[in-house]
């Protein structure tokens, strides 16, 4: 897989980010480097090896349906960049 400008622009839309041309170039380089690094694993012969989906022991872990106290409202909103009343305020999403 090759990361090119078209792909980065597509990812910008998905991530709702707008990069400058300079940032895009840097992104293309960085992402290609990362992929090249990871692709090394492709050198291994993995025929007949099941994919590892989880490193956790394959045992079903379930929780009882019992209410546990979460965060107090004040705490929950403590690090929120913008508030209105007790709501989190965000800029409107267009489209």
């Amino acid at each position, binding site marked *: 897989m090759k990361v090119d400008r078209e792909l980065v622009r597509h990812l910008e839309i998905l991530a709702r980010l707008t990069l400058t041309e300079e940032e895009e170039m840097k992104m293309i380089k960085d992402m290609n480097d990362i992929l090249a690094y990871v692709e090394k694993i492709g050198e291994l012969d993995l025929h007949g090896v099941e994919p590892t989906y989880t490193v956790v022991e394959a045992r079903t872990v379930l929780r009882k349906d019992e209410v*546990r106290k*979460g965060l107090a409202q004040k705490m929950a909103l403590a690090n929120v960049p913008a508030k209105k009343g007790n709501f989190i305020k965000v800029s409107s999403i267009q489209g």
Partner: protein
Amino acid sequence: MKMRNDYKIVIGLEIHAQLLTKTKMFCGCSTEYSFDDPNTNVCPVCMGMPGALPITNEQAIRFGVKAALALNCRVNLYSRFDRKNYFYPDLPKGYQISQYKYPLAEHGYLPIETPNGEKKVRIRRLHLEEDAGKLIHQSDKIDTAEYSLVDLNRAGIPLAEIVTEPDMASPREARIFMEKLRNILRYIDVCNGNLEEGSLRCDANISLVDPETGRSTPRIEVKNINSFKFVEHALEYEANRLRRFFEGDKDVVRETRGWDSKLQMTISQRGKEEENDYRYFPEPDIPPIVLREEFIEEIKGELPELPDAKKKRFMQMYNIPEYDASILVSSKELANFFEECCAKYDKPKIVSNWIMTEVLRELKERGVEINETKITSKHLVELLKEIDKGTISANTAKSVLERAFETGEMPNEIVEKQGLKQISNADEIRKIVQKVVEENPKVVAQYRGGKTKAMAFFIGQVMKVTRGKANPKMVNQLVKEALESPEE
């Protein structure tokens, strides 16, 4: 060009049902929330804080399996969660934990009664996921800057997503399917099924096919359908719009459209298409869900009698028509109410008649289920017994029932308090009849001159004088006697 009407309509539905668990899908936060107090049932898990780890709610799995079994699905002994990645302010983690490749259940079906007979709507899959937060769009009038408010109390509430095959051939069928699905989810107590409040949501895919050429319109996804009526309206609107495709309308393209109930039309939500790139990958924080056969069998054993089975039983056990039975089982509460009444009053068809007319009208007017009213089976049974005894007429009984719905008083109390007891004393009625006859010599003459319909006038007058309390049968008889007795 004339519009053709023979295009085949193809509809598939995608339904989201909020499960009635006490806590969220992956954390112990309460699922109860009110809009007045946002961000109160939240924790690091459902707020998407770094390092927080999700743990699956066992009850959500049970409810999912229960729903799957009720919809005749095959429950997968191995299922798994995946991350569905997209950015939206109501999704704090930047991904939704859902099931993509290995859903909880597949290959089900639900039979529905259509105007053209019974048909099976196949269920492609049922999987579990988490709900997003609630987003409220606002625009500030002062600086016209638009912004949105986020409440994360809903974020993480368990959802069952149910996807059908495109098996519905009309908007009507889609509605029938939705109503039946809702009824089943309510029967098995996994979802309260409220479309208006969003605890049950429905998105629809629709396209049209020209049967002659096999040519198909682009597929449209219709969102934002929040009532059963709108399921039908939105899809009818969309089917009509799609017909224009065959006349060369270039505006009909593959897209997502939202139903606007005020404008009664669907509106393009362009720009959302590109987002349909969710880059799913396995959720590494949650081990696979491996179920044992015994677990599934156990849940199968917990399934209550479902609407179709109940309908058949009602027809056999109470000897009522299919039509009655299907209405009575259309709500679990109503079906229970019917059976409670029948246990104390052994004329099921009469109980059914009263439920289907008077009781249902009251429920519809109030927009509630029978268990949310002040009426119990004791009320209806007492009322019916009083009619049988002749204490009140059927007509009076209707107003007594209305009153009982309002106050919760027992029918006897109401009859007593309002002096509604039926007059069944022949002498008393005869006196009134005499008076009415004497006061209206002209009409008497008409009657005797052959205009027998004039009798209704006298009956009406007697009822008026007695405020509807006179025993109708006796009035009938006594009026006839008085009119036909030889002139003095």
